[in-house]
């Protein structure tokens, strides 16, 4: 049986009812368009929101935590075997320092799984605004490393991030904090350290993360400045941020570091579990909506084919009387369904692309997201592949049952009926 013959019969039947088939194809086009647009937009947004947090989060975060002393004095007592709840020894101040940090840094840099490490010194301060003191946290960072690993410069909305290194006693103020202090770039501001020391710092830029709570409190200074504020040596650091080549190795690596270096080490997956859940659910909803649309359009095709079969009973009977088998007839109707699916689907992919690139052009400016200019769109070809495959599969099944019915048409019944 020549496939060409099947195609030409399918085409003739299609053309005889071209308006209905067009409607069916438009249904498929519409659903695939929506599917592509929805997923591109939704995952684009997902990636944006995740990026907001995840790009700037170290894959493994090493720090020292304040622990209350595990051995309280009463434990040393000979008869302290029963119950005792006295915990009078409080944590000491210098516990926040990562001990042996220089050695740890060096061996981390040699680890082949590590992309880079960026140390940090956390300093609690107050921003002095006239008589008022505002809470603040200064992050002493290595500006160059921080930029390479965590795109620091993208969040510096005014000024140059490198000034942090080049200008002594400089500070990049959180945008929220800057507004409260009324400090402009170039101004000097005054801060008080937790030890009561007053220091003048020169504002060289603004920092905006997009998360209001952070921007009101956090500012950046160089490592050296932070160490000086605390009166510590240049090996003092409170955090080590590690970026790995493969993010999926983070839990394993974190566990290993915990054991080797006897420090706290948290992997990104543990620290941000809620983001993955949110992302997964949003993606799931997009798929569910897209696939529902497709199934609805599948019913459309099913209806059209059923109608076509009722209308074309005579044709089917004659084809069978002149030597076409049930299988041939079935193939004809499957072919019709697939034609609707493939053309509808292709146009759907095309329009989906068109609409998502349209959305991509719509300006989307918000203070919370300084790096974003237009709505985010994810052009992942995977969605186009899935959309295409789904359109073919649904139309195949939509065509399967009607075509089986057509293949069972008994020509004698039809011819006698005349």
């Amino acid at each position, binding site marked *: 049986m020549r496939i060409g013959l099947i195609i030409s019969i399918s085409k003739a039947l299609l053309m005889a009812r071209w308006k209905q088939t067009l409607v069916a194809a438009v249904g498929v086009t519409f659903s695939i368009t929506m599917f592509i647009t929805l997923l591109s937009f939704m995952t684009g947004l997902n990636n944006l929101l995740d990026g907001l947090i995840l790009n700037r989060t170290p894959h493994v975060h090493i720090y020292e935590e304040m622990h209350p002393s595990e051995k309280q004095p009463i434990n040393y007592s000979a008869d302290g075997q029963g119950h005792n709840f006295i915990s009078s020894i409080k944590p000491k101040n210098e516990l926040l320092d990562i001990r042996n940090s220089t050695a740890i840094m060096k061996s981390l840099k040699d680890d082949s799984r590590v992309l880079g490490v960026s140390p940090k010194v956390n300093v609690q301060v107050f921003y002095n605004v006239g008589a008022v003191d505002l809470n603040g946290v200064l992050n002493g960072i290595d500006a160059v490393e921080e930029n390479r690993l965590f795109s620091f410069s993208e969040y510096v909305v005014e000024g140059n991030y490198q000034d942090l290194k080049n200008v002594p006693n400089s500070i990049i103020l959180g945008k929220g904090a800057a507004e409260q202090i009324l400090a402009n770039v170039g101004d000097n501001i005054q801060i008080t350290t937790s030890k009561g020391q007053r220091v003048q710092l020169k504002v060289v830029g603004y920092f905006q993360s997009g998360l209001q709570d952070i921007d009101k409190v956090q500012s950046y200074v160089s490592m050296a400045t932070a160490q000086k504020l605390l009166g510590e040596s240049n090996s003092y650091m409170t955090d080590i941020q590690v970026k790995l080549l493969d993010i999926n190795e983070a839990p394993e690596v974190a566990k290993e570091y915990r054991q080797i270096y006897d420090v706290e080490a948290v992997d990104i997956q543990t620290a941000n579990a809620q983001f993955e859940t949110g992302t997964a659910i949003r993606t799931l909803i997009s798929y569910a909506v897209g696939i529902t649309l497709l199934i609805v359009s599948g019913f459309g095709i099913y209806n059209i084919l059923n109608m076509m079969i009722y209308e074309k009973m005579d044709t089917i009977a004659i084809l069978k*009387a*002149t*030597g*076409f088998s*049930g*299988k041939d007839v079935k193939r004809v109707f499957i072919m019709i369904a697939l034609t609707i699916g493939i053309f509808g689907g292709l146009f759907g992919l095309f329009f989906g692309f068109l609409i998502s690139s349209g959305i991509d052009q719509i300006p989307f400016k918000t203070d919370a997201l300084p790096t974003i200019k237009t709505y985010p769109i994810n052009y992942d070809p995977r969605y186009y592949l899935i959309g295409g495959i789904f359109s073919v599969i649904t139309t195949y099944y939509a065509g399967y049952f009607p075509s089986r019915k057509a293949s069972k048409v008994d*020509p*004698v019944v039809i011819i006698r009926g*005349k």
Partner: protein
Amino acid sequence: MSSIVLQAKEISKFFHDPFDIQVLKKISFVIERGEFTSIIGKSGCGKSTLLYILSTMDTDYEGDLLIDGQVMRGKKESELARVRNGKIGFVFQFHYLLNEFSVLKNVMLPGLKLNQLSSAEVEHNAYEKLKILGIQDEALKMPNQLSGGQKQRVAIARALINSPLIVMGDEPTGNLDKKNTEIVFEIFKELAEEFGQSLLIVTHDNEFAERTHRIIEMEDGMIIRS
């Protein structure tokens, strides 16, 4: 090579709905190559029923049907379709052309389905058949642009496209006027006498039947004269 193209051996047919009724009662006969046979009988005596069985479209019967020496019982649906395609040409009372296709394509379709010749050769043959029937000029029209008589001739051309062993017709002239009936009859006669084509035609027209080579007369599901 045997000269028998079709043999019916004690074919019986029952209908069960709305009540059990035997429509055909042990029908036996033989059609030889080149014979122009007509079947006559009162309305409701089972002529159409017999023809549907002989054309392999109806498989629910008792007895045996041999076409070209082969037993049809036990063949699969697709094998029967192939027999109909290659060995039987069927002409209905209502012309039953496919309105989606041109006259030429209608004639070609069974030939393309047979898939033994290239489509160019099938097209050539289709023109030949249309020429025999005197309607080659209508080849590129659509069926609904033809008169009733012309449509029936196209249907005959379609029945002939694969040079079948036998052409069957169920009242092929039943819907035609005197003049067109005459034309169709002359065509059948020419096919039988000049091309050696076997024909088995059911008709109500006794005058038509008298002029065929052989008459099979039925009554109440039985053959009373053959």
